């Protein structure tokens, strides 16, 4: 029986067991490899996507939780040819080194800033500490979040691409 949900604004249907983690539906069935596999145990955050706008670790969240709901991945943050304010801030702050963790980092940051455009240092710590970066880009992530927050406060419409 096909399981349906909304993915990056479009309806999608898959025929697969409902307990498969969303991460593997995205990567191995739908071919969206932007969300990454790092630990399989919600320890690293590389798999972070949004379920109805809230950040989840897709490596442990079953597809059944997404049925009838809205899932957003890194590929769906902005319309093709555009970039989200947070993605642009990441580029301007030259955040990525190897880049493997950055999809998850960005999804966590977008979720934070979508509900709080003036996060305190503690707010950011809480939102971002689930995302590991082995290359050590945390200082630049801090800068990028500051830049993005400032731009969102200045032009809130930008967030809704």
């Amino acid at each position, binding site marked *: 029986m096909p399981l349906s949900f909304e993915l990056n604004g479009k309806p999608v249907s898959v025929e697969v067991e409902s307990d498969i983690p969303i991460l593997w539906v995205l990567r191995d069935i739908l071919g969206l490899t932007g969300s*990454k596999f*790092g630990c399989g145990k919600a320890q690293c955050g590389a798999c972070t996507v949004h379920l109805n706008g809230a950040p989840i670790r897709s490596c442990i969240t079953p597809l059944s939780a997404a049925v009838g709901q809205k899932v957003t991945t890194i590929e769906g943050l902005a319309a093709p040819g555009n970039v989200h304010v947070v993605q642009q801030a990441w580029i301007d702050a030259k955040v990525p080194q190897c880049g493997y963790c950055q999809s998850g980092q960005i999804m966590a940051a977008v979720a934070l800033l979508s509900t709080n455009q003036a996060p305190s240092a503690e707010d950011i710590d809480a939102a971002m500490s689930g995302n590991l970066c082995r290359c050590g880009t945390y200082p630049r992530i801090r800068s990028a979040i500051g830049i993005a927050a400032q731009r969102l406060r200045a032009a809130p419409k930008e967030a809704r691409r």
Partner: protein
Amino acid sequence: MTLDPTDPGRKGVQGPAIISRRNFLDQGMRVSLSAAGVLTVGLDLTSCASLAHGRSGEGRGAFEPNAWLRFLPDGRVIFMLDRAEMGQGVIASLPIILAEELELDPAQLEVEFAPADRKYGNPEVMNIQMTGGSSSVKGAFTTLREAGAQTRWLFVDAAAKAWGVAPEAIQVRDGMLSHQPTGRSASYSELLIRAARTKPREPSSLKLKDPSQFRRIGIDAPARGLLAKVTGQAKYGIDTKNPNQLVAIVARPPAAGLKCKNFDGAAALGLNGVRQVFQVPSGIAIVGSTYWHVRRAVDALKILWEGSPTLPKVHADIEQGFLEALKENGKVVKEEAWSEDDFTALGKVGKVIEAVYEVPYLAHATLEPQNCTVLWSEFACEVWVPTQALGLAHEVVRRVTGLRSEHIKVHSTLLGGGFGRRLYQDFVVEALTVAEQVRGVPVKLVWSREDDQSNDYYRPAAAHQVRGCLTADQRILAYDHKVATSSVLSDALPVWLPGLTPTFFPPGLSLGLGGLAARGFKSGLLADDTSFEGIPSLPYKIERLRVRSVQCDPGIPVGFWRSVGHSHSAFAVESFIDELAVAAKQDPLAFRLAHLAPDSAYRRVLEAVAEVAGWRTSPTAGIAPNVFRGLAVHSCFGSCVAQVVDVEWAGPSREIVEGSFRIRDVFVAVDCGQVVQPDTVRAQMEGSVIFGLSAALYGKISFVEGRVLQDNFDTYRLLRYGQSPNIRVILLASHERPQGVGEPGVPPVAPALANALFRASGNRIRKLPIF
């Protein structure tokens, strides 16, 4: 809205045939260094690419003046990147080096990954095509500049002939050649056919630019590939997709060394999504439609394991083993005016300090787990792998499949972290053993995090025993340092030898030689520099010095881990120097400076970091309430790095426990010679500090009943966002030959932190990790 036009990944377009540069390889010329130190470049086209290198036909008709440049008929210029991109930015820095002399905007160069080919050997690593040892920019700096200059000459010569003018009168800038007196001008693209078809004259002189003329080198250019990395489009090895591709995992024994006696895969095969179940040397392979389908099928396997674990059973025994090894005499690797009797005598009049430092095994923990995709058809084999050693991967595929090079294609993908792990080819071999039974269909082998943590070539554990003697006027008179650790080369050589020996060597011979060398290192007969590097090179003026190395091998696979032996030797040396400074009742900065030569590179970085950290006004303490600081300096891979770590001490007691302190700031001063991309150097220093802090605070791999205990990130902790300090980097600019950048930022962190914690708590850390 900004897009990144330099994003790699655009495919080459086949165009009309142009006569290959290969026809003009007659000019054998040379590079010579004139008395004035000017590098004069002759036309050495021996490394010129030909069209018949087994590539799939992509780009036939390109003009290839050397191994790194391809001018396509449609006007595009391709840079062949022969090093792995793992976040250290070679994808941007190497093209910039060549573009400088070619007088082309680097943004005009599209980057493609070079294929496996011996001409892409790394001169810094025995000419093996590999990326590591902080060697990419250093090893390529002169070669790529020469290639750029030679290529520029080819076009200048062509223009000169076309316009009937002297080549010396032609200027080149941003890809445009011009002759001012006549106003003639043309782009590289417009002169392409002429340059490709005309035999070049020998230049009267072809000089590389004076560094004062650099327009690109040393100036930050837009980083490459950022857009792809922030939009989820960047493809790592684990993202490889092919039509009809299957996924595979290997169910491994509960402890390394056990072998499968028999197994029953019927139940697993009955599960949806599982296609094949079969035995491979490392366990039972399950092949199916998605990672999840094959991973969940492991529980349905019935496997009988036999044998005994090869890894140790009790971790405390391992640690004790290294301490016991310190009782051996070991091999003297450096000795200056040393006499044991003198040391004893000195001890009677001076102050003797002794300390033993211990460090654990560490995992690489690349965030992208190991993986490899193989399509092994009847007459060919295609592989996609995140590897640091494309040359070795190619050789491994050739050896295992028995196919000829022309029928093998190994794609080097982006790496989700390297740190030395992906020099090794074990996961490539494993993928081949799986693909051998899944012929004609692409199969992607994926390791779990548990697989990755448990099957590493770990940074070896080590124990250091250091003795020092201070004179009455607080100078270090004698220093005696013994280190007990495992040989990294012994596990690496069997992997490397296939890349070193001629291709016609029978595989068995390469492996046999590797095994022999391995035994030589393990026994201590051959000295493995990586076991003691960073100690004989300590910069302090000490009259009597002895350094000894003891091999200790509990049978745990060990390997190159970011900064290798320096990752632990610096901890011992710079902690001990600090202990001497404390005993001498001197400021640790002043104490070090007093023992350095006036022109020492170490002095320059120490002064620079002291200045940015405000050390002289607030040494060891005082910059802010409850903030204490520690200092360390170390040189490796040609670069000198000094660091100050500031910790904010919360106590409440003097015990160093979680919550008793926060790392506030880290200041870094680095001297790495000529900088190609300043921002990349900063990023590597920042990343190295975080990498080193993770290791110092938490990093530990321990073995229980032959298994690795820390098999995921809940038990193998890494520094997280909320714990990361502010990091300030000062680059000491120079035009000296570029040196290493990827690793030198790691070694000073642990001792600087330990030294700060001593000031804060009065407790000296001699064993890592801190928690």
